[in-house]
């Protein structure tokens, strides 16, 4: 933290190495530490939730089963039963995103999904899967995705260009949305927290008003919880929508 009493809301997003090897560029940063923590948390939930399955589920079992049911419903709803082959991908992405969003809300933690590198890597993975699977399954027919039917020949090159740009914009919008939501939420919380300490430091009438931003933080935290889950859901459902193009192109 900076020495002055001004609070730097960006400081929480800094990536710094925890251990590094002198000879190589590779280092284990706080971001990598939290990626490990998130993966371990997801694995722990699923392993503990499924190891002792009873008819009357325990809390952990209920949580594991509900998350499975929820994602499976989303996948079936958007892609049909054929789409269940992508269930492992969508489920892993959803669980990783929802856990890193939730763990990031705990004070002094690092939010992995507030780094555009991470979210863009996910989006690139999704779009890469769409392209590879679409071409492997449909061959050249997959390219009909970019050629809508019933368009006059004069307009066709124009429309194809627009469709290609629209397709290329998908990974960007997918990654920027998640990243921007997490970044904006955390900065807002930090700024309001800064208001409290600054008002207390000013003294006088400001001290009496200091509880107001504190109350706002409580409300914002509740809202951030909603955003954390909702953005993970939006990420999962858009992944399904894009993968659906790879399974059923040309409509």
């Amino acid at each position: 933290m900076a020495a002055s009493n001004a609070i730097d809301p960006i400081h929480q997003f800094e990536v710094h190495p925890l251990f590094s090897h002198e000879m190589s560029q590779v280092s284990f940063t706080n971001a990598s530490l939290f990626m490990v923590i998130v993966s371990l948390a997801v694995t722990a939930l699923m392993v503990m939730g499924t190891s002792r399955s009873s008819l009357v589920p325990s809390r952990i079992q209920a949580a594991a089963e509900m998350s499975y049911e929820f994602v499976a419903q989303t996948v079936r709803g958007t892609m049909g039963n054929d789409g269940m082959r992508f269930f492992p991908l969508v489920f892993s992405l959803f669980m990783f995103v929802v856990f890193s969003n939730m763990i990031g809300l705990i004070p002094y933690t690092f939010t992995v999904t507030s780094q555009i590198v991470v979210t863009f890597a996910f989006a690139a993975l999704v779009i890469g899967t769409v392209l590879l699977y679409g071409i492997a399954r449909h061959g050249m027919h997959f390219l009909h995705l970019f050629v809508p039917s019933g368009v006059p020949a004069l307009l066709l090159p124009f429309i194809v260009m627009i469709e290609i740009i629209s397709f290329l914009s998908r990974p960007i919008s997918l990654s920027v949305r998640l990243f921007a939501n997490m970044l904006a939420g955390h900065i807002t919380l930090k700024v309001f927290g800064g208001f409290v300490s600054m008002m207390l430091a000013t003294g006088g009438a400001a001290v009496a008003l200091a509880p107001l931003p504190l109350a706002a933080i409580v409300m914002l935290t509740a809202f951030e919880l909603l955003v954390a889950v909702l953005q993970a859901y939006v990420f999962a459902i858009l992944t399904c929508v894009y993968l659906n193009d790879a399974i059923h192109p040309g409509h």
Partner: protein
Amino acid sequence: MTEPDKGEEERELKARLERLSSALDSKRSDSEGSQDKVGSDVVRTGQAMSLGFRVLAEFVSGVAVGSLIGWQLDIWMGTEPFGLIVFLFLGTIAGFWNVYRIAMRTTSR
């Protein structure tokens, strides 16, 4: 203890149980109703905000991708301003097209 006494006790117990369960039911539906109302208000705001964010991201990314392609084509082919102009135009249309598709999907559902 006599037989009719036991029957009496049982009936009383049954009546008490019924009263309790009906009271519980009314209380539960009360609290559920109020919770649902508050919860759905927040959820609806959140969903509307996320839809708004989606529209914004789709539109901006269309324009960004278009201008990026145009800028890079200009560098490769040396057609200084024209690639950027044409592809910025195409990207803007692609952005509108993305937004149009979201709007069609939400109204058809």
